């Protein structure tokens, strides 16, 4: 670990304020990513995955506040940066592939134009150079360069997704966040695109954050996995470690819900109960109302971090070993 991590997030806490109170969507999240590494974030719907992504780009709605924590990009904390300075970081340093990729292209402009627009916001290059660059990007993502002058509605779903990836690559960022990059695509296209993304990432030595509720996708593409529950990362470690010897009971139940990942038969019943209300999350361990291993202490004290090498989980009653 001689090199400084590309991204280091420390104790990041973000709330949305709504009439009923504060939605604690991101709560004390800490992790870091090395150059060339892919981090997968997995968790149920509403666990705060997209919220983390949007916080990293500081693209939050008006009702959101970052209460605590640091986002260190190459050692620079971007949380206190002015909006104007922040603009230089967006796309140039961190870009994003959005959850609703289908809708993240503006229907009234040609797709190529929308990529050039991103280039022009950050690079001082002549228009011809920009066009040439888009052409190369289309090559990288296996799109016909003729499509550059077409409108989004003339693209198929898979083509649009590729164009979005090309757009994310445009400024050669250090980090790309892919929020459910393939959820809306059919399985075959999904598989293709994931594999392509993986190889592009390796080739360009970029860092990635993959966000998905699909364990299979995360297992396929990431080196490191973080499991999210109710705004917190509850387990973090190498992909193999987390999937083969999960520590946290929540991770275990997620595993059993996806038997294809572990190859084992379901040993636990699938998750019962509702995900917690982030307006008023449970005391102590947020998972305790649904946890089959819960003990008294779980319901009133924050669980400690249990470490096994580079792999940790926050739990009073760690599993495995």
């Amino acid at each position, binding site marked *: 670990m001689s090199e400084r991590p590309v991204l280091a997030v420390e104790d990041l806490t973000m709330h949305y304020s709504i009439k009923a109170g504060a939605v604690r969507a991101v709560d004390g999240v800490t992790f870091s990513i090395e150059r060339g590494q892919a981090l997968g974030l997995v968790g149920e719907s509403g666990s705060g995955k997209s919220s983390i992504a949007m916080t990293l780009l500081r*693209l939050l709605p008006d009702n959101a506040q970052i209460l605590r924590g640091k986002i260190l990009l190459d050692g620079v904390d971007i949380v206190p940066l002015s*909006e104007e300075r922040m*603009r230089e970081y967006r796309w140039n340093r961190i*870009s994003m592939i*959005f959850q609703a990729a289908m809708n993240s292209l*503006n229907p*009234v402009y040609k797709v190529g134009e929308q990529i050039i627009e991103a280039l022009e*916001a950050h690079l001082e290059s002549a228009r011809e150079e920009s066009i040439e660059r888009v052409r190369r990007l289309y090559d990288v993502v296996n799109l016909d360069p003729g499509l550059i002058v077409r409108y989004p*509605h003339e693209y198929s779903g898979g083509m649009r997704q590729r164009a979005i990836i090309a*757009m994310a690559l445009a400024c050669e960022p250090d980090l790309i966040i892919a929020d459910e990059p393939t959820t809306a695509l059919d399985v075959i296209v999904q598989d293709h695109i994931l594999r392509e993304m993986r190889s592009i990432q390796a080739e360009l030595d970029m860092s990635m954050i993959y966000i998905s509720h699909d364990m299979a996708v995360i297992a396929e593409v990431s080196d490191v996995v973080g499991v999210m529950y109710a705004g917190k990362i509850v387990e973090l470690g190498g992909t193999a470690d987390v999937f083969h010897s999960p520590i946290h009971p929540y991770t275990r139940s997620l595993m059993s819900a996806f038997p294809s990942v572990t190859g084992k038969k379901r040993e636990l019943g699938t998750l019962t109960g509702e995900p917690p209300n982030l307006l008023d999350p449970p005391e102590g361990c947020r998972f305790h109302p649904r946890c089959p291993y819960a003990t008294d202490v779980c319901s009133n004290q924050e669980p400690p971090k249990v470490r096994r090498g580079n792999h940790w989980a926050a739990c009073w009653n760690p599993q495995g070993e």
Partner: protein
Amino acid sequence: MARYLIKRTLQILLTLFIFLSIVFFLVNAQPGDISHVYSLNPDLPPETRAKLQDLFGVNEPLWKQYLVYVKNTLTGNFGVSFSLYPRTVADVIGERLPRTLVLFLTATVLSFYLGFALGKIVAWRRGGWVEYGSTIGSVTLYTVFTPWFALMMIWLFAFRAGWLPIGKFLDPVEWREAPTSANAVFNQMIITMIVLSVAIFAVFLFTTRKRVAGARLIQAGSIVLTAAVVAGVWIASGVAHLAWDIVEHMILPVGTLTLISFGGAMLLTRNSMLETMREDYVTAARAKGLPEKQVRDRHVARNALLPVVTSFVFSLAFAVDGGIIIESVFSWPGMGQTLISAATTEDLPLAVGAFVFVGIFVLVAHLAADVLYVYLDPRIRY
């Protein structure tokens, strides 16, 4: 795209046809139908009356009358006005239609331009007194009793301040020794306006499309230049003071009509912007690190424009009514005032003729908005 436009044109022609039929039905459905009105009208000399009866096929069966009516309408033959006898309806309309078109188009373009520009800003800076104040202002303008508002404008700017004339199209004193008729001067003014706007539009289109360096400077320069040329030509023509007289008479009605439509346009833009701001491509544009202004104008406003254009079609009828009221209060001798005075003097042929033209005008505007929409939205292909 072409197919879509052809389809819309055919639809609008069909609509026009149904519209004409409704008018015919209305005119004939009442007890003393138009033929009686004609034959009983004491103002008409007998030979004219006979000619008119021939023209309308009054003695023919109803369906033939209908065909004759459609033919007459399509050839612009609406008969003779009672109140302005012996002028024909077509003649009266020919004189007044341009005045209405200029009043209405100038006010509409201005109000939508201003309403869009302000609505954009208001939606972007949500909350605060700017949004509150402008929303209240727009609702007031939107629901204010139009004649009263027009009256207050006259009272304020013409009667009290004395900056502008009180109403009408021109000042007869100025025109007593005029070498040409008001209409001739007015037509030249219209041509000037068209040339001016086409030139400026072309420059804008060229500079933004080709991304010419120093676009702003070129645009400003071209505006000044064309304005100077136009001013020069007018001064050389020797009737510039007459044209100015008409312009002076136009300012207040155009301004008032602009303000009235402005409120609706602004509210519309604001709502449309607020909805568009939630789109994912707007978040994506922000994520790309584009400057706020570019996100607002290129991504949000550009897309918010589409529903605004659509609603414009729905508000056309409202705007035309507004124009008619304004004409009447300002004694602006256009189609609206013609319609109203024809109705008050029971000059049926003129009223029907003016109404048919108002209808045709709305349909054409509808078609224009369609064309604009196709131009603005690349998704429409058939």
